[in-house]
Structures are given as C-alpha cells and as structure tokens.
C-alpha cells in the first residue's frame, strides 16, 4: 500500500468515526477538554498503526479500542500524579435555541439526569453501557474494544444496568426525572 492509498482508506474507514471516538472519550475522561485531546491523540496513533490494519477488520471496534487505550493510559498517568480530573457541568453541553416549549425543557432535564446517572457508574460498567446503548456495539465488538471475554461483557452489562436502574429510580424519587 502506498502512502496515498493508505490516506484514502483512512479517510473512508476511520475519519467518519470521529463522533463515536469523541463520545467514548468524553464518557471515559468525563470532561470535554481531555476528551478532545484524547481524540486527537487517538487519531494520530490510529494513523500510525493503520498500515497494519487488515481488510475485514471491524473499523469501529479497531478505532474505539485505540481510543480506550489512549484514555486509560492518560487516566493512569493522572492517577500517579494525583491530579483530580475535573468534572464538568453537564448543563452547558446541550446546545439549544431558546425559547423552548416546556416539553423540550423536560426532555433536556431527562437527558441531563440520565447522563449524570451514567457518569456515576463504575468505569467497567460505564464503558460497557456506553458501547452497547449509545454506540450500539454487539457483545463481540465490545469484547474486542475492552479486551475482555464475551462472558465478562455480559455480566458487566447486566450489573451495569442494575446499577443504572437503581441510580435512575433514586433520581426519580427525588424528582429529577
């Protein structure tokens, strides 16, 4: 594969997945600035490794695995430095045009409450839920991205959903949902 050909394939297969990459990074890093850095870093890495990308490989799982590894490497480094990862105020993230009818406000509130509940999940559960429910990945793909057996994916999803249902029903009781 010559350089131009690699670029073309990268453009068709990997570049369109930017949004998925950002979404995963945003959920793992839990703030947008770090997520942006991770996506850039991941794309540079992906481009570097792309020569070894084999025909027939699932491009999304391949890229998301790189994103995940990039995020975890950064998070591990931060832990060593003992830096607190700042959590962002979710409210600023949903852009909208005002004025909004009441039902849209309700929807916005619901989205924020659900996002906050997902953010509270343990990391293993959070990434499984995000990959399954927000990215629509199959168990096999999740197992590729997170590098654990399918059985583990299954039990993480199951326990993650239990945990999330609890968090959401607690919010419902306190009228945030």
């Amino acid at each position: 594969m010559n350089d131009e050909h690699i670029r073309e394939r990268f453009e068709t297969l990997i570049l369109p997945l930017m949004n998925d990459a950002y979404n995963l990074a945003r959920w793992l890093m839990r703030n947008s600035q770090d997520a942006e850095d991770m996506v850039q870093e991941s794309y540079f890495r992906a481009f570097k490794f792309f020569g070894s990308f084999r025909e027939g490989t699932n491009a999304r799982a391949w890229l998301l695995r790189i994103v995940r590894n990039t995020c975890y490497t950064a998070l591990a480094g931060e832990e060593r430095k003992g830096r607190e990862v700042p959590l962002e105020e979710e409210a600023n993230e949903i852009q909208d045009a005002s004025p909004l009818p009441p039902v849209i406000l309700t929807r916005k509130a619901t989205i924020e409450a659900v996002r906050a509940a997902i953010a509270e999940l343990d990391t293993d559960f959070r990434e499984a839920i995000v990959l399954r429910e927000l990215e629509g990945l199959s168990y096999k793909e999740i197992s590729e991205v997170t590098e654990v057996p399918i059985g583990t994916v299954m039990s993480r999803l199951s326990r993650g959903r239990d945990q999330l249902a609890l968090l959401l029903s607690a919010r419902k009781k306190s009228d945030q949902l």
Partner: protein
Amino acid sequence: MNCQECRDYIDPYFDSELGTADAIRVRQHLRDCPECRERLQSREALRGLLGDPQLKYEIPGTLREKLASRFRPPATSLRKRFERKYTARWLFIPMALAAGITLLFGLVFLNKNGRFEHLNAPSLVDEVVADHVRSMLATHLLDVPSTDQHTVKPWFDGKLKFAPPVQDFADHGFRLIGGRLDYLNGQEVAAVVYQKNKHIINLFLWPAESNGNGSPRSFSRNGYNIIHWNHDGFDWWAVSDVSAADLAAFAGLQRQ
C-alpha cells in the same frame, strides 16, 4: 429454566445475543414468571431512556475540522484521483451537467405529484414514535389529566396558537384521558391522549400546511402502529401499541 438461570440470560436475550434454543427457553420461562417479566420490562424502560440520540456527546465542530484537514488527502491527490477516473473530462462534464439537469426536473416532477411523500414521511414517523415512547416513560404523559373533553379543549386554547378538536370516544372503547403540549415537526403541537384497555394512544395534531383531505396512511415501527391523515385543516398522527385495526377504527372515529 429457573429464575436464577433466567437472570443470567435476560440481558443477552434482551440484546438478541442468545442462540435460538436458549432464547426459546427464556421466552417460555418469561411466559410463566411475572417476576422475570418485570425484570425484562425494566430493561426495556431503561433502553427507552438511553435511546435518546442526544445522550451521545457530539464532537465539537472545531475538532472535527481540525482532524478532517489533518487526515484528509491533500487536494492535489484528490484531483489526481479524479483525473485517473475520468480522463476524458471534456466529455464528462457536459454529460454530467445534462444528467444532473434531467434528474433535477425528474425530481421536481415526482415531488409535485406527491411521489416523494413516502420518502419524507419516515423521519416524521420516527419522531412521532419517539415522542410516544418518551411520553410513556419517566417524563410525563399528561399536562391536563381529564376525561372531560370540555376541560381538555379549553386547556389547549390558552397554550397553542390553534384550537385542536378534542372528543371523547369512551363508548367506542377509546377513553379520553387528557392532553399535553408536545413538540414535533419543529413546532408546538397538541397531544391528545386516549386509552384503550391498557394501551395508550397518543394523538398528535397541528394545523396542516395544505388543506387536503387525504386518506389515512398507516406505518409500523418497532411494534408500534402509526396512522396519519389530513382532515379538517389539521395534520393528525395517532400512535400506539394497539393493533393496526384498532388504530384504524380510532382514526375512523376522529375523522367523522
């Protein structure tokens, strides 16, 4: 299958990741076990909340641009690709222009004849279904809970720019249970809510752009039936998990 086994299998079952034989065993157990059924229902409710596409974080436009310009092949190579493909450019361009113009006229013609309505419709159908599902979950189904059409109708009058017709059809099995303001198709709309046995029907309506009197069109999405018609100066959309026949009967009553 016992409940413990079913608990282990319920998520792969729910995610359609289970082999046929196991899926059948789970289904059999679910039929006999209300507790496990409840567990499945809570999974469905959860997915309803997680299904909102806005939950996903959107990549900031600046970063998108940055990555695109960094990794997209330079323009010269694009031109080279183009030239490789179409060496006879002097012939290709007028041909493409001619084809484009023909296509454009064709599209305008088809659109005039309403041929594309079914192509435009699905996104609105999906929006209608999403609104229905959302109304059934956590948020709120009713702003004005009332079985009295003389309460529901005036309630809308103060809140919308139009006065939606509200009728009760309890004697036909479709009981009016209230109304709600909703947002569909880029505007505020009236949602009139009915109940048939245990099933909820959301009836969305707003002033029609054209004053046609088209016959109803039916759709189905993920187990929901949808029916749309245009009548009395309004666009009407009914959505529910009742059978298509029941929904058609309901539409028939509304159209009288």
